[in-house]
C-alpha cells in the first residue's frame, strides 16, 4: 500500500472518476431538460434530449425581463468585484506589511462580519438603502454583497502579499520607487493569481446569492434568479423547461471563470502559503 505514495507512476482513480461523474450528472441533466419541450421534461426522465427543441431558450430571449435580469446580475457582480478588489487590496497590504496596534483584532472583526447571516442584516439594509434612495439599484446590491466578499478577499490577498518577501519592498524603495508605484508596478503583477482567487471567491458569493439581491431590488435591478423564482416557486406552477434553460444560462459565467483560472486552481487555492 505504501508504494502508492510514489507519485511518478500514476493511473486512473476509480473514486475520482465516480465522484466527478456524480458532480457533473445533475448539471448535464439540467442541460438535457433545457433542450427538450417542457411536456417531456415533466413526464419522463430522459437522459438524452428528445426531441431537441430550443423553445425554452427562444422564450427567455424573447422576454425583456429575462434578458434584463441576466444583464442586471452581471452588472452588480462586476461592480461588486471592482469595489471588493479596490478596498481589499490596500487593506491586505496593511495587514501583511505593518504590525500595528489592533491588527489581530481588526482582522478577526472583518471575519466576524462574514459570519452574519443575510437574514439578520436584511431589514436594516433595506431601510438604510431606502433612506439614501439607493433601493433597487445595482450599486445597492453590489455594496451589500461586499459584506461577504471583502473579508474573504482581504484574507486571501493578505496570504499572497505575505508570500512576497519584504526585502522586495526595501529594494524598490532604495531604487527610488514610491510606495504607490511599487504597489502598482511590482506588487500587483506578482499577486495576479491571488487576485484571480479573490475574484473567484467574490463571484462564488455575489453571483449565486439571491436573498439579499431579491430584498434590495424591485424592478430596475432585479436579477435573473429572482425572475426565475417567480416561475420556479415550489408550490406554484413550475415551468421545468424555462427554469432549466435559465439555470444553464446562469451557469455560463461560472464556467468561463473556471476556464480562465484553470492553471491557477491548484496552487492558487493554497491562499498564498500553506503549512
Amino acid at each position: 500500500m505504501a508504494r502508492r505514495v510514489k507519485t511518478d507512476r500514476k493511473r486512473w482513480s476509480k473514486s475520482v472518476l465516480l465522484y466527478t461523474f456524480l458532480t457533473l450528472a445533475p448539471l448535464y441533466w439540467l442541460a438535457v431538460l433545457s433542450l427538450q419541450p417542457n411536456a417531456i421534461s415533466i413526464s419522463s426522465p430522459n437522459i438524452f434530449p428528445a426531441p431537441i427543441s430550443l423553445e425554452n431558450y427562444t422564450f427567455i430571449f424573447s422576454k425583456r425581463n429575462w434578458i434584463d435580469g441576466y444583464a442586471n446580475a452581471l452588472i452588480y457582480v462586476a461592480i461588486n468585484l471592482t469595489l471588493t478588489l479596490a478596498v481589499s487590496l490596500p487593506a491586505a497590504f496593511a495587514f501583511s506589511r505593518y504590525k500595528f496596534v489592533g491588527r489581530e483584532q481588526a482582522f478577526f472583526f472583518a471575519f466576524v462580519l462574514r459570519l452574519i447571516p443575510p437574514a439578520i442584516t436584511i431589514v436594516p439594509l433595506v431601510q438604510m438603502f431606502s433612506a439614501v434612495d439607493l433601493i433597487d439599484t445595482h450599486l445597492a446590491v453590489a455594496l451589500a454583497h461586499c459584506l461577504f466578499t471583502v473579508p474573504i478577499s482581504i484574507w486571501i490577498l493578505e496570504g499572497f502579499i505575505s508570500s512576497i518577501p519584504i526585502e522586495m519592498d526595501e529594494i524598490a524603495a532604495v531604487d527610488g520607487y514610491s510606495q504607490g508605484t511599487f504597489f502598482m508596478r511590482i506588487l500587483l503583477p506578482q499577486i495576479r493569481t491571488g487576485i484571480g482567487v479573490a475574484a473567484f471567491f467574490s463571484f462564488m458569493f455575489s453571483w449565486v446569492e439571491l436573498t439579499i439581491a431579491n430584498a434590495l431590488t424591485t424592478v430596475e435591478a432585479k436579477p435573473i434568479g429572482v425572475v426565475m423564482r417567480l416561475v420556479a416557486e415550489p408550490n406554484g406552477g413550475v415551468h421545468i423547461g424555462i427554469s432549466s434553460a435559465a439555470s444553464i444560462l446562469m451557469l455560463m459565467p461560472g464556467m468561463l471563470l473556471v476556464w480562465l483560472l484553470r492553471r491557477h486552481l491548484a496552487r492558487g487555492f493554497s491562499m498564498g502559503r500553506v503549512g
Partner: protein
Amino acid sequence: MQQKNKAWLFLVPSAALLMTIGFAPLLTMLNYSVQDSFAGDQFFWVGSHWYEKSLHSPAFWGALGRTVLFTVLSLSIQIVLGIYIARKLYHVQKNGEAFLCFLALPLLTPWIVVGFVWRHAMDAKAGLIGAMGAFSGVTPDLNSVAWVWTTIILMDVWHWTSLTVILCFAGYVSIPKPYFQAAQIDGASTWAIFRYIELPKLKRVLIIALLLRIADSLMIYTEPLMISRGGPHVSSTFFSQELIKTAMLEFNLGEAGALSVCYLMLVVPISWILYRHMRGQDGA
C-alpha cells in the same frame, strides 16, 4: 516597521465600507431587540422582554437545533469525502489538476438552481433520482421528513464537497516531495503517512474550509426553501428561514433582533477558537 499608524490609512476604505453595511445593520438589530414598537413608528424600551421570549420559544430552539444538526451531518460527510477525493486526486489520478475545473462547477452554481434541480431530480415520475428509485422500489417522497432531510443533505454534499477537495488538493500540492520520499525509505504505512505528514500539513486549509463551511451552512436559506418550503410542518425550517419569517412576514423586529443576538453569541466564540488555531499556525 516604521510609520505603523500609516497602516490604518490603508484600512480606511474597507473599514468604512464594512462598518456601514455590516456593523451598522447589526447595531440596528441590537437596538430593535430591546424595544417594542407601537403603530410601527413609536419605539419604547422593553429591556430583556424579547430575549426572554426568544429563549423560551420552541420555534427558535427547534430551528437552531435543526440548523446545527444539518451542519454537523452535512459537514462531516463533506470534510471526510473531500479529503479522500483530494488524496486520490493527488496520489493516484493522472492529471489531477485538470479535474478541479469540473469539480469547481457546483460551487459557482446559483443556489436557486441547486435547489431547483435537486427538487426536480427527486420527482418520482420525471426526476433522475426519483425515477431510478421508483424503478427499484424506493420511491422518494418529499412529503416525508426522512426524504426531505436525505435530499437536503445529499444536495449540500454535492454542492460543497468540491470546496474541501480544491482546498485540500492545494494543500497537498504544497507539501514538499522529499517528505514523501523520506517516509517511503522509512517504510511508513499509508496510514502513518496520512496521519503524520499529510494531515498536519493540511491542517491550515482544513480550518479554512471548516470556517467557511460552518458559517455558510448555518445560514442556509434558499436551497431548502426550494426543496420543501421548510416542511413537512417545520421539519426542515432552518434558522435563517425562521428569522426572515419573524422579521419580514410577522414584522416582529424586536424578536428578530433578539434571535439575531442569541445566534451570534453562539457562533462568534466557536469561530474565534477555530480562528486562533488557524492564525497560530502562521506564527503571525
